[in-house]
């Protein structure tokens, strides 16, 4: 499903956080949003699924402006993996994943076998089925992140938004999560928007990248087009060396010095 963002502006009180953001993401594509702290990455993600309401502009999925959709209709189309997933309540992993069926259930509906099947399928894909009976506050960070992805998949969305899904994870689990995300884009044909801090991993896994600077789009394109020395200096205020690594077909970005 195609996701179209048109001319979005967002303010916190009178501070402009996002200014005239326009882009599109196609089915099966992974779009990375990169930028320094405070560039508006998370705000942009929140505007896409209408957790925040932009002052101007529109988000269109499958030809429908999400402003006209109910919260449940949005949740049927857009799954989200938020940045902060600390859950202090001892629900089982299976209970948490089943919560993904919420947008499909009316207030009086009960969970059916079909819902359980969908949840189990999502847990197979994310390799969390063996955790089903464990308590959410007792599993590791990497496992928890996969459980939250499983919950998002249980919504059966066409679009998946992920806010720094690999922060707080060790390098092994970072790769594991990103491989999973790539699989979801290629095999399940999901439209994926990924906010990241890691230039190297983003360049390796994203099909296209948007660089955000002070609430505006600085540059858009393939990782090779966008992640240049000049752009990175301009946006992140650092000098870098960039090597092309043939083995992984990715860029290897090495920070050299910060610009005062």
């Amino acid at each position, binding site marked *: 499903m195609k996701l179209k963002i048109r001319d979005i502006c967002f303010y916190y009180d009178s501070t402009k956080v996002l200014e005239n953001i326009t882009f599109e993401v196609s089915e099966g594509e992974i779009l990375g949003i990169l930028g320094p702290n405070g560039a508006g990455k998370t705000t942009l993600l929140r505007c896409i699924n209408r957790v925040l309401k932009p002052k101007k502009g529109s988000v269109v999925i499958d030809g429908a402006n999400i402003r006209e959709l109910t919260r449940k209709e949005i949740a049927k189309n857009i799954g989200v993996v938020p940045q902060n997933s600390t859950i202090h309540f001892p629900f089982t992993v299976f209970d948490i994943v089943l*919560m993904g069926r919420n947008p499909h259930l009316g207030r009086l509906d009960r969970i059916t076998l079909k819902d359980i099947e969908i949840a189990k399928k999502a847990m197979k894909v994310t390799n969390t089925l063996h955790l089903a009976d464990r308590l959410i*506050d007792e599993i590791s960070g990497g496992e928890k992140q996969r459980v939250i992805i499983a919950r998002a998949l249980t919504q059966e969305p066409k679009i998946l938004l992920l806010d720094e899904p690999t922060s707080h994870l060790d390098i092994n689990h970072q790769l594991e999560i990103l491989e999973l995300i790539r699989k979801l884009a290629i095999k399940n044909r999901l439209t994926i928007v990924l906010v990241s801090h890691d230039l190297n991993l983003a360049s390796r896994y994203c099909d296209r990248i948007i660089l955000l600077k002070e609430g505006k789009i600085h540059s858009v394109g393939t990782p090779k087009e966008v992640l240049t020395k000049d752009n990175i200096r301009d946006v992140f205020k650092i000098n870098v060396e960039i090597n092309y690594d043939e083995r992984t077909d990715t860029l290897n970005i090495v920070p050299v010095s910060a610009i005062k």
Partner: protein
Amino acid sequence: MQENKNFRIKRLRGFILLSLIIGLILSFVGALSIGSVKIPVDVVFKILFNFPGSWQESYKIIIIEVRLPRVILSALVGSGLAVAGCAMQALFRNPLASPYILGISSGAAFGASLAIVLGISFGTGIFAVPFMAFVFALLTIFLVYNIAKVGGRLPMENLLLAGIAIGSFFSAQVSLLKYIAGEELRSIVFWLMGGFWVSSWDNVIIAFPLIVLGIVVILFFSRDLNIMLMGEEHALSLGTEVEYVKKIVLVFASLITAAAVSVSGIIGFVGLIIPHTMRIVVGPDNRILLPSSCLFGAIFLIWMDTLARVVIQPIELPVGIITASLGAPFFLYLLRRRKRITGW
């Protein structure tokens, strides 16, 4: 394997609910039988269901006119406060939340004290105190709600702070009334401690529809409350209308609390500890936690009130003293027995 597990959990939940329902029925009968006049259980049954038999005429009056409304009222208040407390804890995602957290109890206390001090009466006079308590409870939540609201949103921290501020204000007014009350001081103090001294069928008729309606509405929102425990951003992305759920649950939890407080005064502890106790037993899932808290709250308060009636006959203790004195050690026992430390 997961279907089996799901099935097992459903059966276990069914078993817990069934035990609590049976417990509630036994508590009803037991509480009707126990008192300054002991009435055998079989006689209680015969009187309740109008079976033929012979017993002292006064038994029927004691059961139907004195004990039955009182037991029903304590069950209503117990289940109402437990459900309202459970809902508040879920909304605030805070283990210290109780039905009184938004100052409703202080508002009600002010209304009741005012009625007592001014000797307000509408015709019969009996209704003035609960009526004023109810009106001021609703006024309190109306004020708190509107002060806390920002645009169309209701930030929980605003709500909490507004509740504490308004609650403190009314508490101060209650203190003022106590200070100038003179002979009425004793009535105010008694009302504040909470109890079922003046339980009548009138009270039952007032409280029953409000509390039952509130409980039923909140039960319909159990799944939403589960999702809200994940945090507002998660809840929104899972398709929950967070602001709508907050408003509805808040309004009905407040309605329950206002009704409960106006007929029984401020009975502490029940709304805080019953949800915690049941959480230790059945876990955090509101779909089982709310109904089991509801039933256990009723059982708990029925027995606490029965104790209050009989423990130092012929004098009656305020039930609030009993709930805290016995409930606290019981809860601490459960807390120590619990193996896990996480969650609440």
